[in-house]
């Protein structure tokens, strides 16, 4: 029995990490209707920022989440202002291709700068575990990352609902034209949104860097999991990605126990397709976002 409990708890922690990685992706897709294929590359960039800080000044990766977020926020803001804004009105292929080009650029840039070594940000405590009865273990590293995921998602939903800028972001997301009539500079708000999403990705990268190993080739995998978590959870609200991540983590954990281990990814994609076919707006998403059709 404890084996199943261990898998479930570990699955929940893994799910939180998926949620943490996906929340930025879901924000950009929800507000700007842009699918950012370079999201995984942003996550990795955050991991490398935290790695360098740890290497140079010995900063703990979980503390490194803040500088990683700041660096990525700046990068995200500039990228949106200078580049993504140029195509935000274009059909979806164009935004998909632009972000795909961005992914190639960032991943291979990381490869040229940091080589392809497998890295992990060393911490003294990350691999130790909190021992629960029945020898069920909660590794500290993943626990902190999970808590960070929940806190960041809460902070984002507070920000979006309570603060002026946050409301501006939501409003621009729903109807850009109307928002501009209210004196909101859509360019700035979009750049802010992309910056925040990149910052969240950066923070997630720092946490992931502490918990597992990473190398430039992993970018695609993080983008794919963000896809699944964002769609599962549904767009239009900030906790969708976290919810989607948890469901994905659980499915993979239970699937891993009941079925041969190699089927783990197959389960993730199976769940994705089924949810999309039956309930396109996802578990907690708003139909408005799913029905939005672009020319």
């Amino acid at each position, binding site marked *: 029995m404890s084996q199943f409990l261990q898998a479930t708890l570990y699955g929940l922690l893994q799910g939180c990490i998926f949620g943490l990685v996906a929340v930025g992706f879901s924000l950009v897709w929800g507000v700007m209707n842009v699918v950012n294929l370079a999201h995984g590359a942003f996550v990795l960039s955050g991991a490398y920022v935290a790695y360098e800080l740890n290497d140079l000044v010995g900063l703990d990766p979980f503390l490194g989440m803040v500088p990683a977020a700041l660096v990525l926020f700046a990068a995200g803001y500039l990228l949106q202002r200078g580049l993504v804004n140029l195509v935000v*009105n274009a059909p979806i292929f164009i935004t998909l291709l632009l972000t795909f080009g961005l992914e190639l650029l960032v991943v291979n840039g990381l490869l040229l700068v940091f080589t392809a070594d497998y890295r992990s940000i060393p911490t003294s405590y990350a691999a130790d575990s909190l021992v629960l009865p029945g020898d069920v273990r909660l590794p500290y590293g993943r626990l902190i990352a999970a808590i960070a995921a929940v806190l960041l998602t809460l902070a984002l939903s507070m920000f979006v609902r309570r603060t002026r800028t946050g409301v501006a972001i939501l409003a621009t997301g729903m109807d850009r034209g109307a928002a501009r009539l209210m004196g909101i500079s859509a360019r700035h708000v979009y750049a802010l949104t992309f910056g925040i999403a990149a910052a969240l990705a950066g923070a997630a990268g720092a946490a992931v860097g502490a918990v597992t190993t990473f190398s430039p080739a992993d970018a695609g995998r993080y983008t794919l999991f963000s*896809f699944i978590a964002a769609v599962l959870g549904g767009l239009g609200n900030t906790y969708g990605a976290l919810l989607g991540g948890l469901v994905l983590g659980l499915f993979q954990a239970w699937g891993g126990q009941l079925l041969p281990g190699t089927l783990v990814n197959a389960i993730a994609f199976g769940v994705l397709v089924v949810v999309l076919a039956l309930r396109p707006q996802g578990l907690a998403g708003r139909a408005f976002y799913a029905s939005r059709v672009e020319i």
Partner: protein
Amino acid sequence: MNPRRQVIGWAVGLLVLLGAFGLQTQLYTGQVRTVSTVFMYVGLAAAWNLIGGYTGYACFGQVGFFGLGAYTTVVFMTHLGVSFWLTIVVAAVVAGLFAALVGFPLLRLKGHYFAVATLGVAEGLRELVLNTPAVTGGGAGITIPTVGHDAPTPWLGNDGFYVLFLVLAALVVAVGGYIAYSKGGFALRAIHQDEDAAAAMGVNTTRAKTLAFAGSAALTGAIGAAYAFQQVTIFPERLFDVNITVLMVVMVVLGGSGTVAGPVIGAIVIAYASEWLRQHLTNAHTFVLGALIIVAVVLMPQGFVNYARDAVTERRWSLLDNVRRYRL
């Protein structure tokens, strides 16, 4: 599109076909193989154009049909000893039927959701192949017997595959050309521009979309089958690699989505550019390719053919007003 232009279109298409055949005599084996890959991508891009370009449904799982066609052929040739020429047809049928089946729930989705759902299907197919090693060899790969008595069809050789991929590409472009000017093309373009209005005017949108999706998948499956036979040994990671789909999309969009010549030009230019970059910038070729895609997408979102047509008809040469059109 008046008939006179159609005739010119077909004539020029034939000219290009003959030019390509002539090209073969000029090339080394390495170049023959590279140009065969260009033809493969011309065929894949033109096939994707049917569902992505004409109908406007951005299928991000096209490599799923490519891999499905490939594995169908390999399984039939390896386990049942069926001749390649039969299995390529079976591969097309299997891919087409699978698309129709999957299309039933997925073609109701639109935009990003359709893209993500089809991506999920392709990734799911790869996992399926990975987990059925008895039939497909799984992660260890599977090899078609191409030498000795139990080889159902002898290996065609680089020149043989050059011709095979050229014929397949010509077939797909011809199908695309035929549809563009036919009644079907009308319906697909109407669906792309306003599906509800098309339905209200009598277009059976479900049937039209499913046919376009299945047709595109079948042609992609056939090309996948040819690729598998050329490779002799195939692996799931490569046959279901999402980059193949994205490369198709890049080629169609930058060539000119929804046109006949667009995918052809896009495929030739992009395949040639990435090959040239890989040879000359061994370390940074993907990096530069990424930058090129970004610049091309921003400056020429409507694609080369559409840009050329607008430039000639309306004298609008400047790329900047392309940018202005989509800028926030």
